[in-house]
Every structure is written in C-alpha cells, then in structure tokens.
C-alpha cells in the first residue's frame, strides 16, 4: 500500500502535524524506495515529531530506540531472561530431565526479551522505528545498525537467524554531536530539518494551543524568530515556543506590545541557561518587541 505524495501531506495535516514544504516528499520517497530517512537539524526543531506523525499517518506502532553512549546489542536488540532461565533449570533438574533438553528449552523464544530493534522486525503490521540521536551511540553500534538496515535479519547465536516478518519504516535522527559514517549516510535518504519559518510556527502554535488568537500566534512566532537570531547558547526550540504561547495565553495576554513586562518575565520559557537569561535584558527584549510587533 503505497500512498501518493499528496495523500501523505493531506494525512499529515489531518493528524495535526504542520509539515514543511518538502517533508511530505521525503516521506513519500521513503515508501517508494524503501529506504530509511535520516533527519538532521538542531535540537528542538521537531525531528522526533516527524516520526510520530509518520506513525500516525500509517496508523502504525511507533517503536523508539533512544541512543546513548555505550548503547550495546543487549539493550538495543535482545536479552535473555536470565532469572526465568535459572528458575527453569532448577525446576527441571528436580523433575530429572537431561541437560540437553533443558538447554534446548531455556534458549527458546519464551525466554527471549525483545528490545526495540528486534521488536521492530517482528511485528505483523510494519511499525515505524525511530532511532533517536543515532550520533550519540558508538561507531561500533552504528556499523551494526547499518547491517540490520540492509538485511533486516539478525542472528542470535543460541537461537539462529531471525528474519524480518515485516520491514519497518525507519527514521533516524541526529544532532550532529559526532560525524556519522558515510556508509550510513548513503544508506539513508536525507532531510535537514530547520527551525520553522514564522508562518509555519504560527500555524503550529494555532494547532497546538487551543483558543489562542491568530494575531497573537503570529506575534509570538515573530518574536521567537527574533530571539533565535540573538547570540544565544541554547536556541529555543518549537517546544519552548509552545510553552511560551501557552503561558501567554494563560496570562490572557492579547497583544505583546501592550504588555512588555509580561513578555520579558515569561521569557524564562524560552531561555534555559543563566547566560542567555542575562544576555536578553529588559532593553533587548523591548527592542526585539519593537521590531516584531
């Protein structure tokens, strides 16, 4: 069942994801060529949201693997349920079963704990596999992932090779803390996710913050865009924008120009470090406000 590109963008809109112009094409291409999609971009631009939206579009399960330094096969692929295995040994010993039979039994699927990667290839309905922040895992793990993504089968020494029942749709995200290997990059389609432009961000605010005024949403989006241009240590992401919009809506602010005090004070929603807070003084926030409103 391959969806048309237009259908994908319609469905994205239907599930409440405000897509940028080209993401629908990338998602369509993923289906069409059966390749994984690599999303890069700064923290907070909404990379993970893309995978969630994709899962919603296909009404598929979202299986998420959060990568971190030192992530290994056990945590990503499978693990034996050692406690149950040991219990089984004890009980079967009591019955007097022979060692070979016990071994056969305890290394069966019953004692296998699925971890995200194994789960993703063993579902009847193809899920969406989100490999989040793949750049934080080791290079060793990256090589392993590459192998899995091309063969869609894994071998478990005690059990044999497990082939994929269905091929999952794979989305990888990276923040660029480490350079990914060329091999992995070439295996994937690539999409660079940028901060949304003012119009799109205003739309996102409107969709996600119930009851907010259109003009205010636009003002907030413009203000955030201006704040992002300042020299900050941690540039506010879309989630921060939404927090801020909700806060302002909660304070019943109608027009940012009328209430510079409230604007400045609620900016803690956007600025998450001491330095940034110190940098955006009252004067600066008023200057920005003057520019955008």
């Amino acid at each position, binding site marked *: 069942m391959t969806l048309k590109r237009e259908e994908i963008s319609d469905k994205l809109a239907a599930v409440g994801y405000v897509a940028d112009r080209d993401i629908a094409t990338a998602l369509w291409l993923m289906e069409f*060529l059966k390749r994984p999609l690599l999303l890069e971009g700064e923290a907070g631009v909404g990379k993970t949201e893309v995978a969630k939206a994709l899962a919603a579009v296909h009404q598929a399960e979202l299986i998420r693997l959060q990568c971190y330094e030192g992530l290994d096969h056990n945590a990503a692929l499978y693990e034996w349920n050692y406690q149950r295995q040991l219990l089984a040994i004890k009980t079967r010993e009591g019955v007097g079963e022979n060692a070979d039979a016990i071994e056969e039994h305890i290394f069966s699927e019953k004692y296998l704990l699925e971890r995200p990667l194994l789960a993703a290839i063993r579902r009847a309905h193809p899920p969406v596999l989100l490999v989040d922040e793949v750049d934080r895992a080791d290079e060793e793990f990256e090589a392993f992932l590459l192998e899995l993504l091309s063969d869609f089968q894994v071998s478990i020494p005690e059990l044999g090779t497990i082939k994929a029942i269905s091929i999952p749709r794979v989305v990888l995200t990276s923040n660029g803390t480490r350079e990914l290997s060329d091999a992995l990059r070439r295996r994937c*389609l690539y999409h*660079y996710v940028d901060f949304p432009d003012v119009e799109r961000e205003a739309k996102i605010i409107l969709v996600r913050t119930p009851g907010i005024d259109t003009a205010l949403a636009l003002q907030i989006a413009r203000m955030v865009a201006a704040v992002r241009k300042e020299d900050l240590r941690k540039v506010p992401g879309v989630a921060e924008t939404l927090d801020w919009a909700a806060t302002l809506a909660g304070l019943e602010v109608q027009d940012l120009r009328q209430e510079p005090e409230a604007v400045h004070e609620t900016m803690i929603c956007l600025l998450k470090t001491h330095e940034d807070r110190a940098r955006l003084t009252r004067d600066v926030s008023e200057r920005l406000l003057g520019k955008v409103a």
Partner: protein
Amino acid sequence: MVALAPANQGATIGEPARRRLAGFARTLRDNDFRIGLAESRDALQVLASPAALRPASLKPALRALFCATHSDWERFDEIFDAFWQGQGMRQRQIMSGSPAASRAPGRRLAQAHVPQDALGLPDRVERRRDDDGEISADGRGRRESASRVEALTTADLRHIVDPDEVAATHALAARLARAMRMRLIRREQVRRRGRRLDLRRTIHRNVSHGGTLLELAWRRRKIKPLRLVVLLDASGSMSLYTAFFVRFLHGVLDNFREAEAFIFHTRLAHVSPSLRDRDVTRAVDKLALMAQGIGGGTRIGESLATFNRWHAQRVINSRTAVMIVSDGYDTGEPERLGEEMRRLRRRCRKIIWLNPLIGWRDYSPQARGMQAALPYVDLFAPAHNLESLAALEPFLARI
C-alpha cells in the same frame, strides 16, 4: 523543466532523460557529493514515478535522495537550478563559497603524505578490534606515519608562513587529532567490552534463596567517561598559535563526548557550540571573529574567576581534566591567578597547561603569572609544534 518532458509520457524513461540524469549525477559528484550506483538507480525510479510529473516535487525528491550531509543540502538547490535550467551546462560547476572547494588544497596535500590507514574511518573500528591488545605498538606505528612530514611537524608553528604550508599544517593538526581520537576510543572499547555476570557475588547474594540464583550481580564498568574542558588563550601574544590549536581541539573534542571549550583574553567566552560546527573552516572563522575586537592584554586570573564562578559547577566533575592553553603572560594580578588556580585544582582531576613558549630555546617560566599558576599544574607541556601535541596522547589516555 523542459528537459524532463520525455519522462512525462509514462513509466518508461526515454534515453535523453536518462542521459540528463546521469549528467546531473556527474555534476553533483564533481561538487563532492557522494553518489553511487544505488542512488542513480533509485533516481531513475523516481523519474519514472508520478512525482516526476510535478517539477515542484521532483526537486525535493532528488534532494532527499542525493544529499547526505547538511552542506550537500545547502548547496543542492543552487546546483539543481543551474543544471536543469541552464540548458546543457555540462562543465564542472563548482559553486562559489563551497567549503569543499576552499578546503581542497590542504586536504589533497595531507592525503599525499599520510597513508590511507591513518584516515581512521569509523567502520574500521569494528574490524580492527582484535588488534586492541597491541595498542602501544600500533600507536607508535601511526605516529610515525604522521612524522613523515618531518619538516612540518617539528617546525615551530609561528615560523610557518607560506600559505600552502599553513594549509598543510592545519590539515595535519586535524588529522593528528583524528588519529588520536580513534586510538582513545579503541582503548575505551577494550576497557568496557562485555557485560559479564559476576558469579562470585551472584552466588553469595543468593545463599539465602537456598542456592537458587534469583538475584544476579553483574560486573559493572566502573570507569565513567572522562570529561575535558579546554580554556584557550586567544590574546595577541598567542595569535600565531591560536588557529592551529583551534583545529587541533576541534578534532580532539570530538573524542570526548563531554567536552567544553572556552576562549579567553580579557574576558571569557563559551565556545563549545562554535567548535562543534562540523565545518572546520567555519568554526575557525567564527572563533577568529570572537577572538578579535577585545584588546588590552590577557587577564587569565579574571577569566578563570569568571569560569569558577559561572561555569565550573556545571562543566566540572571529579572526572574532568582541564586543559589551559596559554603563554602565561597575564596583565592582571598574579596572586589572583594563583588563587583561582587553587580553586580550580580542588574541583577537577587534572590540570594540563600547554605553553607554546616551552618549545623556545632557553625558556623558563619566568612570567609572574606562570610562576603563580605552576604549583597547581599537573602537566606543564610544550605545544609549539605538531610533534609536541602528538606527545600528549599517552597522558590523555591515562587520565
């Protein structure tokens, strides 16, 4: 989009369109895109698909397919438009301002001298894991490969002025850092290989269950990753060295997932985000800009005070090594520097002070600031040429 017309007629693609597409792939390759046969084949498939009916969706589709990095992504539109709209532009279209083009000479020079195995491709880590036991021997071998460019590695960095040599040295510094990084990573891998059952503790713990092993005890990796914090002096007296260090640090910082960098002269600036820029040239430019504009000598003491007051709590833990790169010429009070060094020393694990002047003949740390700081420094080492930087590696591995 006239050239695409043949593709519009159905699922089969005409020969002209096929040829145009091959031409486009070639143009991209000329611009340093990594495009293989698989991509070209998939592109043909896209061209035969309904997406090709609408130019507006063809461009993003080909972009998603052909791009692999952010810099590809940024250049793609320009190349695409030039190729498909500029009828029959067959010649090499190197886009202005392309980072690849500006870096090319340095890269080529370095590759000519350094054998391929020093490249440290990530996928090699896996395959070479078995060699891990012989790291020291291996390490020496690799360092030799870098030192083939003897003249450049031993020359004092401030004496290198010829633009070509500067470019080559920059490339070497980055390469050295990269090789060092690969070795440090492999050491780390050896150290933490495998998650193993601690049988003795397991049995001991389960005596109360009558010998049934219910609670398992695992051997844990005790060593937490090391964190590196670099404070780089960017004052006028250091200006001849700064660019090299920035390149070197850019590479080394990559190894330490938890690394922070600061630059100081009269005041302290946090520069980790800039250093994390994948594009070295751009990172260096950014830092050069930051280093400019604030004259009036170096205030190491004050900068350290700012660091201790605002940043130390966040970036320093007991597994942190602080690396200060400075010539020690402080225009502030030496007592202040001494005091701040003492505070810093109490917080962190090691302080490394790299001083380019040590490489000068007859140098002894006479500057008052340097005198005040020395008692708190664990390693006081030269950093005037690439060889001295390479010599740091065993120390970094041991911390």
